[in-house]
Structure formats: structure tokens, C-alpha cells
């Protein structure tokens, strides 16, 4: 099975190669190659998933030596010993589940794209890129070590860059692409430092070896930059996640990334790539757990992100931007989940979110494709025109809002419950669950706002409304499949409420798998008492339902029933709206100040320094050497000093010319006088 994992990742890569080299010449510009490849990957991933379902556990590895360098065996320094990097496949339940989810989503989105991107320029390249992306994502999932994990991670970043900038003639798109790449690169670099530190501490980057080492407490006393090594690594990994999963404060790139084609947004910026950050946290959970402080920081980052992003979602009018902020917010949930120790819940939320968010994006894509605008203020009343799309949107909206019968209910409640339990255990950190719950309410509010503005009410733009139509089957089918997957049916029974074994919301197959995975990852046991957890679950369920309902009701009141005028609200919360509208001024801070003011002027200064000072001293410094000599020989000449700063080469000539003229006067008797004086001076010096 591990070998089929390899093929799962390899097939899309081959498709990429085909597409990029000869794609343009193939019929239909070769889109079928990519679709077939990812489809086959899905077909390969399914048996693995089924195997997991049937056995409840799965553990296989496959290793190759990638780099093997002899070192000095007896070296005291760890780094000077042998350097060996093995790469390979780690197939455990987490892998299997992710593989299944990603291939499924990818396949559907590939299918959707064939319709959505139809007729675009560089159509083949689009498929090449998303194939490469799929390959990288799948490669990341099956990686058994952090190095290949990182490689795939970066390749995804590349694809993200390429795809955001797909419309490369559009300045906003290319700006967004650079922003995305650079912002994530900041996180990636930290992540990479973490990997280096990990290698330094454990001598390996392999996950399983790392788990073992952490369990054994290897090098627990090593410090890096004054921090305990585990903490350093943990923080680095966290920063990697913050970059990739668009967490506060590096979240700014994701909304802009919506400049890319919508399927890309669905696949990369909602379902898979951004979730890779969370997957990273899950993969390295034992290490994070061993460095206590880091998890709490992670929880805070997640909670803050979840809340802040949700708030921005309220004021956005661009349908994709709303979804982008909601993605950030939901990712915040997952990160928070990992942070508070609700490891399984976060992972489950990752899965459910992938389905309903992909569905939402595809729906929005469908809408955009139909009305040719992204501004919700120009939509409205599309319910009738696009019934399937509407239905799917509705289902996913309900799912994301966390209502019963839908998948979001199951996972989000678990995350919130975990957070609440954490808060109850450590009352000092109670703000984390509070932010989480608040975000849940806000989420419900803005998602329904989206729903109402798009599909309900009267058409605001008659022309666009008139042209709107339902999409072809190839585009609708993925919507339907994803919407179906957003039902709680697949996870915890039809309602999502199931009280078995005194547990709320059990997802039997999933829990078993996660438990098995936890065992293999040597995660000892979750902390806190059983009782608190149980209590928290109950409370969380109630709170979240109340808040979600509140959000929906408020939204209905404002946007459907028009009982409250949104503009009035806007005025009422003027400063607040201002802040939200400017997204807390992060862009201004980063781009406007840090990059344009600080960095660029610093660069210009350095470049100027390079030209003037360094050159001035070291090349044109010949002039200075001559100056010294000259001041010994004769008297100082201000003109020459002035000129020295201008051009050293010319000055060298000028200076020496001056000196020579001073002595080589052409009068032989003067020469003799100079000679005799010099002779006398030499004698004087030596005397």
C-alpha cells in the first residue's frame, strides 16, 4: 500500500510533466491527462481508506536513502558526524484519511475546472499547475520526514504563486501572488529553521524517529538561542503554520489570493494547502506537546485568528473575500483545536471544512461564472436561476454555521468543547474558548449574510441576473458531491447528535483511526480529567447552538427581512467598521510601511553605501594611500582633497601628478638640491 501511496503522488506529477511539455498540443489542451491522473490517484487512495475503515488501523512505511554523507564518526560535534537523510512514505491512519479527502476534493475540483476554465488562455498550464499542486500536496501527506514535507510544502507555495498570478497581466493578480509567496515564505523560513534545529537536536527529520526521540526525552536540555530546543522548534513550526494557514499575523495574503481562478481558491486556498499547516501541527504534535508553552501560544493564535477574521468577514462585499476570511477563521479553529489539545477534533474539522468550504467556493465560482461579478451587492435572487447551486450553498452554509445534521456541527463542536475544557482547566486562558464561541456566532451571521445577499431578495443588477443560468453538469456534479459530504451523516449519524457510550458526537471510524494514530505517534494521553471534558462537551454544544442560531437570526433580520438597515448599523459602529474595512490595517503596516518605507529605503541606502563608501575606501582608496604618502612628502592640497571624494582613479593621477610636478620641475639644479636634501634626510634618519 505504501507503494501505491507513491503512485498517488507521482501520477499527478507525471501529468504535470506531460501538460507542461506537450499539453498545448493535446486535444482539449490535455485537461483529461490531469483529470485522469488525479482520478487514478483517487482510485488508489480509496482502497487504502477502505482498508483503514475495515481494520481501524494502518501502519506502513517505506524508506529510501536520499542523501548519505560520511562524516567523522568520533566527532564531538553532532553535526560533524554522518549526515544521512532518508525519505519515504509514512502510511498511518492520518495519512490515509488525508489522502482520501485530498484526492476526492482534487478530483472534483479538477472536474469542475474543466468547465469553469473552459476556453481560457493557457488552459493547459492551469491544469499543469494544479496537477503539480496535487502532486505536492499528496507528497506532503505521505512524507515520512520533515524535509520532504517541507519540499512539498514549498512546491505548493510555488503552485499557489503561479495560480494566484495565473492572470498574469492583471497587476492586482501578480501583486497578490507575490504577496502570497512572500508572506508564506516568511513562515516557511522559520519552519525551515525549525527543521534544521530538529535535525540538530535529534539527528533526523523522520517523523517516527522524532516521536521516539521525543518520548525518550532526547536532548531535552539542549538550548537554541537561549530557548529550550523543543520550544524553539515548536515555535518555528508554529510560525510555519501561521504562514501557510494564514494565521494572525500573517493572514493577509489569503484574501488577496482570491485573485486566482475560483477552482484554485477552492482547492488550494480552502480545502488543501492552507490546511497543510494544520496537518503539520498534527504531524508534529508530540513535539509540540513536549514543549508545553508552545501549544498555548498556538491556541491563542488560533483563537485570535478565528475571531478577528470572522469579524472582517462581516463587512466584505466580495463573495470570495467573505469566503476567504471565513477560511482564515475556520483554520483558526483548527489551530486553536490543536493548541488546546483537541487534536482529533482539529483534524476532523480539517476534513469537514475541506468539504464544505470547497463546496462553498465552487458554488461561488459557479455564481461568478454565471453573473461575471464577485460583488455580492450586484447579485441577489439567484435562488431560482441556479437551484442546484443554491441548494449546495445552503447545505454548506449550514454546515459551516455548525447546525445539527451537518458536518460542521460535529467537528466544530468538538473543537469548541476542547477549547472550553482547556479553559475550564486553566481559567487563566478562558479567553480562548470565549473567542471561539464568539467567532462561531459571527460565522453564522456573515455566512447567512452571504447566502441572503446572493440568492435571496430581488435582483440588484437586472442585466446580470438576466444572464444568470445554471451551470453544466460537469460543474454541478462536484457541488453536489461535496454538499453531500457536508452532511453529518458520514460522520456521526444523520443528526450528528448521537449519545453512545456516554459520548457526545462520536465518529466511530474516525475516533478509532485517530486513537490508533495517536498510539503510533506515542502521544501519551490527553490531559485533564474525563469529567471536565464531558461537562465541556455538553456546555459547548449548547453554547454553540445558541450562538449560531443567534447569528442566523440576526442575519435574517438584517439581510432577508430588512428589519434593520445595514447602513444604519454601519454608521452606528463607524470606527469599528472602519477598522474592519481596512482589515485592522495590516496591509498598510506590512506593505505600506515595512516594505515600502523601511525595506526599500534601507536597500537604496545600502546600494548607495556600496557605491560610495565601500568603493570609496577600498578601490578609490588608492587615492587615500597616496594622500598619506603625499602628506609626508609635501604639503596638503585642498583641491586634491575635494576631488578625492569624486573619483579615486582620476585623483590618483592628480595626486601623483601633483607630487611629480612639484619635484620634477625640469631644473637640474633643483633636482640636485632635492637629491642632496633627501640624501641628508636618509642619513639623518639612520644616524
Amino acid at each position, binding site marked *: 500500500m505504501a507503494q501505491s501511496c507513491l503512485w498517488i503522488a507521482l501520477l499527478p506529477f507525471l501529468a504535470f510533466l506531460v501538460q507542461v511539455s506537450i499539453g498545448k498540443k493535446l486535444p482539449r489542451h490535455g485537461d483529461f491527462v490531469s483529470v485522469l491522473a488525479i482520478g487514478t490517484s483517487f482510485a488508489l487512495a480509496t482502497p487504502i481508506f477502505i482498508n483503514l475503515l475495515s481494520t481501524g488501523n494502518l501502519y506502513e512505511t517505506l524508506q529510501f536513502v536520499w542523501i548519505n554523507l560520511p562524516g567523522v564518526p568520533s566527532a564531538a560535534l553532532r553535526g560533524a558526524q554522518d549526515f544521512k537523510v532518508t525519505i519515504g512514505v509514512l502510511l498511518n491512519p492520518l495519512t490515509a484519511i488525508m489522502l482520501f479527502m485530498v484526492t476526492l476534493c482534487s478530483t472534483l475540483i479538477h472536474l469542475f475546472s474543466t468547465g469553469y476554465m473552459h476556453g481560457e488562455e493557457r488552459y493547459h498550464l492551469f491544469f499543469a499547475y494544479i496537477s503539480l499542486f496535487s502532486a505536492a500536496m499528496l507528497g506532503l501527506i505521505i512524507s515520512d520526514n520533515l524535509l520532504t514535507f517541507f519540499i512539498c510544502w514549498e512546491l505548493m507555495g510555488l503552485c499557489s504563486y503561479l495560480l494566484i498570478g495565473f492572470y498574469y497581466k492583471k497587476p492586482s493578480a501578480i501583486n497578490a501572488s507575490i504577496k502570497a509567496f512572500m508572506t508564506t515564505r516568511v513562515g516557511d523560513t522559520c519552519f525551515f529553521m525549525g527543521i534544521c534545529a530538529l535535525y540538530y537536536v535529534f539527528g533526523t527529520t523522520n517523523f517516527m524517529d522524532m516521536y521516539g526521540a521525543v518520548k525518550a526525552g532526547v536532548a531535552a536540555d539542549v538550548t537554541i538561542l537561549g530557548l529550550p530546543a523543543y520550544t524553539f522548534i515548536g515555535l518555528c513550526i508554529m510560525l510555519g503554520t501561521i504562514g501557510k494557514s494564514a494565521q494572525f499575523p500573517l493572514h493577509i495574503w489569503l484574501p488577496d489570493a482570491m485573485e486566482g481562478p475560483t477552482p484554485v481558491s477552492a482547492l488550494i486556498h480552502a480545502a488543501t494547502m492552507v490546511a497543510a499547516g494544520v496537518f503539520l501541527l498534527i504531524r508534529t504534535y508530540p513535539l509540540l506537546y513536549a514543549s508545553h508553552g508552545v501549544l498555548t501560544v498556538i491556541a491563542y493564535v488560533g483563537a485570535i485568528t478565528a475571531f478577528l477574521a470572522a469579524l472582517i468577514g462581516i463587512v466584505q462585499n466580495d463573495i470570495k473575500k467573505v469566503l476567504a476570511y471565513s477560511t482564515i477563521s475556520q483554520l483558526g479553529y483548527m489551530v486553536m483545536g490543536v493548541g488546546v489539545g483537541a487534536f482529533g477534533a482539529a483534524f476532523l474539522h480539517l476534513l469537514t471544512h475541506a468539504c464544505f468550504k470547497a463546496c462553498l467556493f465552487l458554488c461561488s465560482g459557479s455564481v461568478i461564472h454565471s453573473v461575471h461579478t464577485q460583488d455580492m451587492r450586484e447579485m441577489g435572487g439567484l435562488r431560482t436561476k441556479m437551484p442546484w447551486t443554491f441548494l449546495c450553498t445552503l447545505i454548506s452554509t449550514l454546515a459551516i454555521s455548525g447546525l445539527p445534521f451537518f458536518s460542521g456541527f460535529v467537528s466544530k463542536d468538538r473543537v469548541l468543547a476542547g477549547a472550553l475544557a482547556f479553559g475550564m482547566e486553566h481559567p487563566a486562558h478562558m479567553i480562548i474558548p470565549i473567542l471561539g464561541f464568539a467567532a462561531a456566532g459571527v460565522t453564522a451571521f456573515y455566512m447567512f449574510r452571504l447566502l441572503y445577499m446572493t440568492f435571496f431578495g430581488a435582483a440588484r443588477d437586472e442585466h446580470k441576473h438576466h444572464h444568470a443560468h445554471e451551470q453544466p453538469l460537469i460543474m454541478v456534479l462536484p457541488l453536489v458531491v461535496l454538499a453531500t459530504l457536508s452532511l453529518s451523516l458520514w460522520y456521526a449519524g444523520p443528526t450528528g447528535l448521537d449519545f453512545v457510550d456516554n459520548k457526545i458526537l462520536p465518529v466511530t471510524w474516525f475516533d478509532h483511526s485517530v486513537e490508533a494514530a495517536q498510539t503510533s505517534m506515542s502521544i501519551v494521553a490527553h490531559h485533564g480529567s474525563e469529567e471536565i471534558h464531558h461537562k465541556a462537551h455538553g456546555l459547548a454544544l449548547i453554547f454553540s447552538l445558541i450562538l449560531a442560531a443567534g447569528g442566523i437570526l440576526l442575519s435574517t433580520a438584517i439581510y432577508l427581512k430588512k428589519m434593520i438597515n445595514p447602513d444604519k448599523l454601519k454608521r452606528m459602529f463607524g470606527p469599528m467598521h472602519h477598522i474592519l474595512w481596512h482589515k485592522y490595517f495590516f496591509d498598510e503596516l506590512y506593505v505600506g510601511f515595512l516594505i515600502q518605507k523601511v525595506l526599500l529605503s534601507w536597500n537604496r541606502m545600502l546600494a548607495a553605501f556600496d557605491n560610495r563608501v565601500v568603493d570609496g575606501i577600498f578601490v578609490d582608496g588608492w587615492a587615500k594611500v597616496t594622500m598619506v604618502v603625499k602628506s609626508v612628502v609635501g604639503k596638503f592640497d585642498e583641491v586634491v582633497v575635494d576631488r578625492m571624494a569624486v573619483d579615486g582613479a582620476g585623483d590618483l593621477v592628480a595626486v601623483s601628478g601633483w607630487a611629480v610636478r612639484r619635484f620634477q620641475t625640469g631644473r637640474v639644479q633643483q633636482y640636485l638640491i632635492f637629491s*642632496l636634501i633627501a640624501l641628508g634626510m636618509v642619513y639623518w634618519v639612520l644616524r
Partner: protein
Amino acid sequence: MTNGMKLVLFGAEVLTVLCALIATFHPNVLYGAIALLITFLGVAVMYVFAGADFLAGAQVIVYVGGVTILILFAIMLTQWLYQMKLRDVGTKLLAPILIGAGLFYVLAKALLDINPKFLSDNAEPAQKFLMTPKTALLGEALLGSYLLPFEAITILLLGALVGAVWIARPR
């Protein structure tokens, strides 16, 4: 040496130095050249007292009879034929005099300071050497130990002659 002899010698020395001063500083080169002639004669007298009889003659013949006449001839030639002024005007004397004085100071210090194995006048070899006529000795030396320099200087004179003639000869 009697006191009279000493006074003659001393007079010759004083004359030499005075004429050398004139030769150096007199603005008129013609007077300078004539003073130089007297200087040469003074030096020749000193040679005699130092026991260099042949050299004194050579000095008179070569310097006085040759070099100085040559110089005077050159001066006359250039003056009378081309009506040029002989006076040096606007000579810058400060640096040369300082250098010369410094040099003289150091040399005098060095020369007066030496404590070599000088022969006193009364020493036997000194007296013997002083009294021997030098012509024969010089002849022996020139054909003996100094044969090669003696021969080699002919080449020098030949080269100098060819060169001088080539340069001075009108077109």
C-alpha cells in the same frame, strides 16, 4: 718644516680658499674662472708641500693650462661672438648655501674627529716618502699596479674626445 715654509703654505691655503669663494660666488663668471685658476695654483702649492711634486706640475699643466683655459675660451667665445651677459643675476643662494654649510659642518666634524693612525711629520717613513721624487714612483705604479687603469683611461679619453667633437662640431 720651518715656520717660514709653514707661513707660505698657510698663505697658499688662504689664497686657495679665498679664490674658491670668489669662484663660487662672484657674479661674473669670467672673474670666477680666473679665481678658479688661482685656486688651482694654490692647490698645486699645497701638493708640493704634501710631497706630490709631479702632481703639482700636472695640476698646473692640466688644470691651469688646459681646463681653465678651455673654460675661459668658452666664456670669451660665447661673450664676444654672441654679446651675452656674463653676470649671474637672481641666483637663489639660500638652499645651496645651507646645504653647503651643512655638508661642511658634518665633514669638518668628521675630519677633525678622526683618530686614525696618521703619520706624524717626523715619522721616518713619512719623511722618506716626502723627500722621494715622485715621478719615478708614479711611472712605476702606472706601468705596474695601475697598468690597467692607465690603459683603460685611454678609452675614456677616446670616447670623450669622439663625443665632444661630435657634439661641438658645427654641422
